[in-house]
């Protein structure tokens, strides 16, 4: 199973975080779990790099956070998307689509040619 896991391409962690948080406000652990689930354990997210990424996005004003009482009875930090973050998500999604389509096209062409 480990062999099947792929490292995230550079810069895509931010995009995934924005996407996950776009649906609802989540705390850090939930975001990590969600990422694992959504990617069906294919994409390996280093937990160590998740939190710095969250803080970076918060700093850039793409995410905002509130401390709320959570299911454990303790306060937890819940991240949610800001308007700026939503716009950024849109742009990055579009970019990503264009990129993957272009790469798919290139790959298809090579196979056809071979």
């Amino acid at each position, binding site marked *: 199973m480990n062999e099947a896991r792929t490292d995230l391409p550079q810069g895509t962690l931010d995009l995934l975080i924005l996407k996950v948080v776009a649906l609802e406000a989540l705390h*850090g*652990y939930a975001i990590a779990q969600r990422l694992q689930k959504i990617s069906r354990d294919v994409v390996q997210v280093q937990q*160590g*790099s998740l*939190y710095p*990424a969250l803080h970076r996005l918060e700093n850039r004003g793409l995410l905002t956070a509130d401390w709320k009482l959570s299911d454990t009875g*303790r306060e*937890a930090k819940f991240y949610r998307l800001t308007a700026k973050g939503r716009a950024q998500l849109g742009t990055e999604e579009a970019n990503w689509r264009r990129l993957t389509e272009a790469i798919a096209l290139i790959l298809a062409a090579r196979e056809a040619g071979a």
Partner: protein
Amino acid sequence: MMGVLGRLLRRRRLEVQLDAELRDHLERQTADYVRDGLSEAEARRRAQLELGGFEQVKEACRDARGTRLVEDLGQDLRYGARVLRKSPVFTLVAALSLALGIGANTAIFTLVDSLVLRALPVRNARQLVRLEGGSWTNPIWEQIRERQHGLFDGAMACSDTRFDLSPGGESEFVQGIWASGGFFDVLGVSAILGRTFTPEDDRRDGGPEGPVAVISYAFWQRRYGGAADAVGRALVLNGVPFTVIGVTPPGFFGTTVGRSYDVAAPIGMVDRLQHGGDSQLDGRSFWWLEIFARLKPGQTLEAATQALRGVQPQIREATKRETGRPEDQADFLRDGLTLAAAANGFSEVRGRYAKPLLTLMVVVGLVLLIACANLASLQVARANARRRELSARLALGASRSRLARQLLSENLLLAVPGALLGLAFARWGSRLLVGQISGPEALVFLDLSLHYRVLAFTLAVTIGTTLLFGIVPALRAGRVPPADAIKQQGAGLAGEGTGALGGPLVVIQVALSLVLLFGAGLFVRTFTRLAHLDLGLDDTPLLLVSLDAQRSVVPASGRAALYARAQEAVRALPGVAGAAVSAIAPLSGMGWKTRFQVKGRPKLANRESEAWVNAVTPGFFTAYGTPLLAGRDFDRRDGMGAQAVAIVNEAFVRRFLSAENALGRQLVRESEPGLTPPPAEIVGVAKDAVYRSPREPIPPTVYLSLAQMGPDMWPFASLTLRAATGSPALLAKAVTSELATVDPRLSLSFRLLSDDLRSSLMGERLLAMLSAFFGGLALLLAGMGLYGVTSYGVSRRRTEIGVRMALGAEASGVIRLVLGQAVRLVALGLVIGTGFSLWASRFVSTLLFGLEPYDPATLAGAAAVLTAISLVAAGLPARRASQIDPAQVLREG
């Protein structure tokens, strides 16, 4: 930006939240694993493993916050302060040597800046040009004035002078400027109160408002307390009433750097302020004005010079002397007028002190370098001692750049107080220096207010210093492999490479110190030579009274008699042992030079036939203690109508008479054709005595009888008094009242001959004093550096030395071992320093007197002193090394 600031202010809360967030993550992960069936302990371990190092993640999150650099700086500074507090001696030595180094550099730079670099505080100073070649006559200025608007964007003339504000008796001098009507307009200086001069004010004998004067801000404050109604008040200059019409801004001190002005008066008034004499306005051989012009926009210096040369024939033709030797006139017509840039004004003080100051700038720069080398080796030693601390921090996850930054901020902590202390020291020091070069006769004034350029210089020096002494240890700290450093503690065997940097630093220090010591030696010897020259006068204190007869009603033909009466009057005063009047006071810097010919001797070439002249009363040689070697002194017989007589000095006899007997020879003074004075008979030969400056060889000198000068005698003379007992300065009061009875309109000013001598050697004295001081400082620093490096080497090689001794090495052998290493470093430093000294000394050859720049004795002396200090500095740790107890070292093993 506000975000960053906010985050900085909320830092503590953010830290708590970060901790809580990560802990929350761990709790949830652990709980999940426990639910999956893992044991509590195993679950916790897995969770932590997956998150990665708790502290590392925190660090990464802090990095993401974007306020890292600032936060770290604060942290580093706090930590640095703690570290520095723990080693107060190091901190004190470092901060003080930096303060001294930075302060000395700033002080000298302040002077260099205000004397050499700074542009005059006038409109667009770059356009200002000056007519080269000394001073000019008023007729020449008038010619240029008529043509100024065609040639330039305006021209002006001025001359430094002093005005006497007193009604008579002892003078009350203020610094003055004779200014043409366009002076202030061409400079672009406007009045802050009232107005400045117009061309009409500059008319001869005063303009429509009569004689008017413009005063400086400082004078306005001093004399009128800054009163608004100062404009319109009367001000008496040399006995003539003027009206104050304006005040100039506080930053304007005139065009002569090194001098400030109090009162400016129009050139057209000059003849009114002098009584009985040739017109200074019409005199075609009265060279007294500086001429400046402002270039037209876009006009180059060369173009302006060309334009001026175009009208030169007319200017020269209209201003040539009616009489005079034809070859002199031809020279006069041919001599091309040339303009030079004058953005930073003109200055005699600059000519005199620029080179010594630049030399001192280099000296203090080198001292700062030595201090840096010292601090660098101290830092390296400390960094080695702190390796465990640094490696521990590396192991705990600090990045290498972070460590380097921390060491640099420690250095900043040392350098910033050093710089602040240095600035304070510099303000005091530069004032002190200006006070030193200021003589009683020549008050030196420099604008020493903190200028942006000085501040920028200090800032640059501080940052440069910090980097210089801090960067190497910081880089090395980054290279320590943590595991190695933690393992490697205590012991230490030979061949360990970490202290190696101390060596090169010592070599550099020794080399630079040798350069400084050699320089100091040269300057000190120059000064001692000058101070112990045989000046041909005895060193009894003499009082000099400058007599100024410009305001006297006595006509030019009666001046010699007036001076003789003054001499007679003061000679009778109690306490006066001798008195004499001379046209020129020795060492005053004034001079009078003429061509001579001795009858019956071959005629000498033009330059060769020049000798310096003085006109003196009887008793002059006694008063100055200059012995007469042959013949007699002047006496009552040598007056008007009697046979003209002269006394010459030995140098004159050597040059003009090839050492033949001089007495009885006829001396012809060459003057303008038709005015040849009767030949004078040589009646005495005096011992060589100084004329203008102790630096020049004593020139051939002719003393004429003052009583025979007739109308040639000018309205200035010097009265010299020798006191019977005590200080001659005490005679001043009695002399003032006595001379008032001779002529109440005679202006007087007093000074001591020793002051003149002192100020004529001030440049040399200053250079000798300061270079000796800094040479000593360099020696001290180099000694400390060598001591530090050697001690450190001994402490590192303790084990090795202990083992050697256990194996039978003698104490003397150990001393040789330690000293040998130090001696090798010092020897290498001496060799490099010698090369550097010999190369550098060429640049100071003009500052030396009676010495060659490569003077071997001085160099050997400097090297000997440095070697002696080095032996002491390295000998102390060497002796300690020889006292190491082998048994103890082996037990420590």
